[in-house]
């Protein structure tokens, strides 16, 4: 009974962290069709922003939920203005340019913070269930990602800004004809996507030791989750994160964590082979 509860929490946590890792990329790729390979580095910078803010005496939750998204969002804004705005519609070129950017960020972080592991302690204490110890912070991550998904849905579906953003992504010429500036809307959307990446990096920072290259651990997972999700933003994100999270956790508990990771990757290859348009290319069509 205790064990099954622990396994349930671990599975939920695996799904939640995949949602969190991929949310920023889902906005940037799912809406703007920009494959941001610097996504992992945006998360890394979110982590560093949190740690720096905490060491300056800011409350850890303020640092994670407010400061890190803002800082990374602003960095994303600069990147969009300088590089990405010249490359809209050129999928492969954006991929290469953002890969270059990710190397630049790794280099910068190494020069500023040094090539050592830094970290902060988890702000929520663990507790025991029967004979097992559960990390209380896992609940925080699960709650953050549920709130995040609901908030994304609400903003895109319910607000005027979300409506304009979705319209512009579908037909930027029509949006321009109606008096909205596509340039500015693309800029704001990229800001939001970067801020989400920063938030994810910040929230996950207490769980991992942070090094300048730790973005690389996220990018592949985020990439395959978003691509396997397919064209629908939120339905795709949730469905593919759920399937990959379950597969990796089942194999982790059954065999070993390394096999869990490998199983996730093999599942991705098979899924893409069966459904090249992603999960929402076949199921949940036309949903958000």
């Amino acid at each position, binding site marked *: 009974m205790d064990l099954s509860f622990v396994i349930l929490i671990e599975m939920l946590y695996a799904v939640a962290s995949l949602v969190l890792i991929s949310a920023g990329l889902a906005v940037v790729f799912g809406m703007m069709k920009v*494959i941001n390979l610097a996504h992992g580095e945006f998360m890394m910078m979110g982590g560093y922003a949190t740690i720096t803010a905490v060491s300056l005496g800011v409350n850890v939750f303020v640092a994670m939920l407010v400061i890190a998204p803002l800082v990374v969002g602003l960095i994303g804004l600069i990147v969009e203005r300088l*590089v990405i705005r*010249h*490359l809209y519609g*050129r*999928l*492969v*070129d954006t*991929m*290469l*340019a953002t*890969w*270059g*950017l*990710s*190397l*630049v*960020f*790794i*280099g*910068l972080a*190494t*020069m500023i913070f040094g090539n050592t592991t830094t970290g902060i302690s988890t702000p929520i204490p663990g507790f025991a269930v029967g004979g097992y110890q559960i990390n209380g912070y896992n609940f925080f991550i699960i709650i953050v990602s549920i709130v995040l998904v609901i908030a994304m849905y609400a903003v895109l579906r319910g607000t005027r800004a979300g409506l304009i953003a979705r319209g512009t992504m579908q037909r930027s010429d029509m949006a321009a004809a109606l008096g909205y500036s596509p340039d500015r809307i693309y800029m704001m959307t990229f800001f939001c996507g970067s801020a989400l990446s920063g938030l994810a990096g910040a929230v996950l920072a207490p769980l991992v030791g942070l090094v300048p290259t730790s973005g*690389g651990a996220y990018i*592949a997972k985020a*990439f*395959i989750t978003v*691509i396997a999700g397919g064209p629908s933003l939120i339905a795709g994100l949730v469905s593919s994160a759920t399937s990959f999270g379950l597969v990796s956790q089942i194999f982790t508990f059954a065999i070993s964590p*390394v096999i869990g*990771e*490998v199983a996730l*990757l*093999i599942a*991705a*290859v098979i899924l*893409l*082979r069966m459904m*090249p348009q992603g999960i929402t290319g076949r199921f949940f069509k036309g949903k958000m």
Partner: protein
Amino acid sequence: MGRSASQDVLITLVVSAVLIWVMPLLISTYTLTVLVIYGMLGLSLGLIWGFGGILCFGQAAFFGLGAYTYAIAAINIGESTVPMILAVLVPAVFAALLGAMMFYGRLTDVYLGVITLVVTLILFKFMNSTAGPQYVIGKARLGGFNGIPGFQTLNVPGDPDTYIWGDPYFYVCAIALVIVFLLVTWLLRSSFGRIAVGIRENEVRMGLMGYDVAARKTVLFATGAAIAGLAGAMFANWGEIVTPTLFSLGQSAEIIIWCIVGGLGTRLGPIVGAAGLAYLKFMLGQQSMVDNTLITGLILVLFVLFLPRGLVPAIASLLSSIFGRTKRRPNARRTRRARHG
């Protein structure tokens, strides 16, 4: 292609003979050897990406697979001829299977990129986790993150005690690169190569004309992997150790950067890009003021933004505009189409 085939071969031979003679006077042969190997690795991606339109994010997988195959076979056999052949065959077969799975499934650009990337990651993660004594192939322990050291390096065929190393090894590698370059030239001049370029330009049209697009892409993909495998085996001989970092994403990224910087859709571009950037990295590694990764990244971003065609086509068009020749070159539009293919 204004020149005839025999002229092309002659120029290649003369230029490479001069280079092989002059370069060791400028740079140590130890460094030159690895530049030549990287040049071959660059050529392997340049072939499938620049002429076949297949953007492979995991060329490092074939490179690493070649190196590991060589190391494992060399430990088990104790002689280097058969392992060299295996190091070409194993990646080629692996790529043929992977390619068949992808191309017959009609996967294109982004999805292709993701799958090749993921396969590289799988190999990387798996090789990293093989530290235990249960991971043994024949007499060779896979060794996890520490890799496999101490295998038989290249020897004169049939005589396992006469090693080829140092200066002679450089000449072996350089001549191998020239031979591969000539083979690639021949392949691209053959009808197979021309159809491959046709598929890059318009896959649907070539399919409608009756060519088996999936089979041809698979063969081209396997050919690229075979070249990468050969480069991997030569790298294993050069480094005398193979580690899982051969499979890393950084390695794959570098190969792509070489092609972009050197020039896609040319045979020479990826080789020049690989050797040039690897040498630049070597020079940068000797100073500690600016981080190495930062410069590599900046180069990639600047090239994508300002010189997306790469160095070799840019220099070639510059030269032909200076000398007023109207020779036809792969123009920007064709190169760009290739990269979106």
